[in-house]
């Protein structure tokens, strides 16, 4: 895969269809209404930070997030990476890293002093990906109670 062909840019409204398709490729479920809602949210909150990777005229990777303060008692302005995905055909060629560079740069420009994310430990590789990007495990543990 020729990396030069991949362009990293801000998320746009016209990416909804492609992101829905990529999510379906990754997770096996077609969820257009989920992405309509989410994209509506990020386009409203912070269209600069959320980013996509485009190759051959379609989205092959995305990383969505925003800067917030006050989550879980963390008062400092924090950039939250909330959802990401890279097309399996384009993995291992720094698409994820380039997406993160753009997102983090934008978080910094918006005044974030930290970047945080939550990783599902059952999803192999994502934790290593963040470690490779310089993230370190934080002393916070997620808890869940199911009904």
């Amino acid at each position: 895969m020729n990396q030069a062909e991949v362009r990293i840019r801000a998320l746009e409204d016209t990416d909804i269809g492609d992101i829905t398709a990529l999510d379906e490729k990754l997770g096996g479920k077609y969820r257009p209404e989920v992405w309509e809602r989410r994209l509506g949210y990020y386009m409203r909150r912070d269209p600069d930070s959320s980013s996509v990777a485009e190759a051959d005229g379609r989205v092959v990777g995305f990383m969505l997030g925003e800067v917030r303060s006050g989550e879980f008692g963390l008062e400092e302005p924090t950039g939250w990476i909330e959802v990401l995905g890279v097309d399996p055909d384009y993995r291992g060629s720094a698409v994820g890293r380039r997406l993160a560079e753009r997102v983090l740069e934008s978080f910094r420009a918006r005044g974030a002093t930290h970047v945080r994310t939550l990783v599902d430990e059952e999803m192999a590789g994502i934790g290593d990906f963040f470690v490779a990007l310089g993230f370190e495990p934080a002393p916070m543990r997620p808890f869940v109670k199911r009904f």
Partner: protein
Amino acid sequence: MSTRQVELPKKYHQAIVKWSERFLPDYDFLIENWDRFFPRDPEFRLCAYRELGMCTKIECGDMEGKPKFDEAGKMHPKQAGHLLGAIRAQASTEFGSIQQHQLTLARAQDEEEQVWILRMMAEELRHGYQMIHLMLEDDWSAVSDHSEDDMVEQILSMRTGSHILGAFNIDFDSFVDNVTFCALIDRVGKFQLAMQKVSSYQPMAESMPQMLREEAFHLAAGVVPLRRYMEKAAQGSFCVSTSDIQKAFNKWFPRGLEMFGDERGGGTNVRFGLKPMKNAEAQQAYIEEVEKVVRDLNVRFVRARLPELSPAEAQGVLEQLLTDHGAVRGISHEDLVHMPDSGFFRRRGVPAFELIGWDGESFAELDDYLAHLSRHLPDAYRAGRDFSQYVEALTRVHSGETTAAEASQEMPVLTRVGGVCPCSKSVRWVAGNGSNGADDRGSADGVPASTL
């Protein structure tokens, strides 16, 4: 990203607030309920935002590499005149779109969609405010005889029918217009703002980033509901059909194309460093983006109608429908949404007043063409004055009474409120304020649409 927030001098700020009381009556409701509808979003503030730390060198044109202008007085008068024309036209569009959206805002079927449009209207108010900030912050006396009061009053007294650009003189007929307008006409706005972000006039360039952030949401406020309508239509809803959406596209898309200005023009803006692209180039990029929107809407429709298909199978069905124009698995070509030909129903630019059909076909007879238009445009729109004016102009062009170029130039006349108070909440604050500029009644200030 850091910005500086600026308020207009009090009397002008108040004039815009007064204007909003009349044309955006739900503004207070929006502000009071902001936290309910947009939890954790920063509060809306009616002010101008100036981005800090932007490029200080001219980015295109004859003066590329030289420092950007921080004052209009330092620019060549022709350059400054062009720029002022663009600022006025932009201001007119911002206020104009609010007047249009207000007409059908109450007809939304879904509260979320309605509130999105309402927020978008408040942001358009801010965009108009931003343009007035540019008018007031600098001294334009070298290129305009109008006083500051006059310039502001002229903008605030425009109504649907007297705005500078055609798209803002057309009434909305249903909420489908609200969302289609966002998806198609705000998209032109996005292109214009993105181009003006490199403007050689620094205050203009600094005004764009915040407007562009807001514009991104305006596009989503159009595209997301449209996608949901496609799903509903595919499931056989009686509330919205793809034919409604198609007709709304036919109504707005030609006007969107014309907002880029004449396909042969735009070179002056590039030379002056005001925009990086000529009209035709920007228009082409727009067409490609709308093609993507349309394709996504159709995928949404096919997947909703045939949920049993895999993504690849659904794409296959869509391809076949688009190639054969027939029917596949109960979906016909007409069930989908399509882009009208770029020559269809045009009144400005290269194809102005040509008898070009929706599919790009040519008509020999005027009557056949009008019958064709009547099949492709919404009924309520055809009953309105914009369409009747177009038909009247087209008839004159085709009888040889006038040329297409002349008919294209028939600008809407700027109506000034003069001494008559249009309503109890009017913006008549200008009266008694020293200058009422009564001599320029009816002047469009020589601003061609192609400046935008």
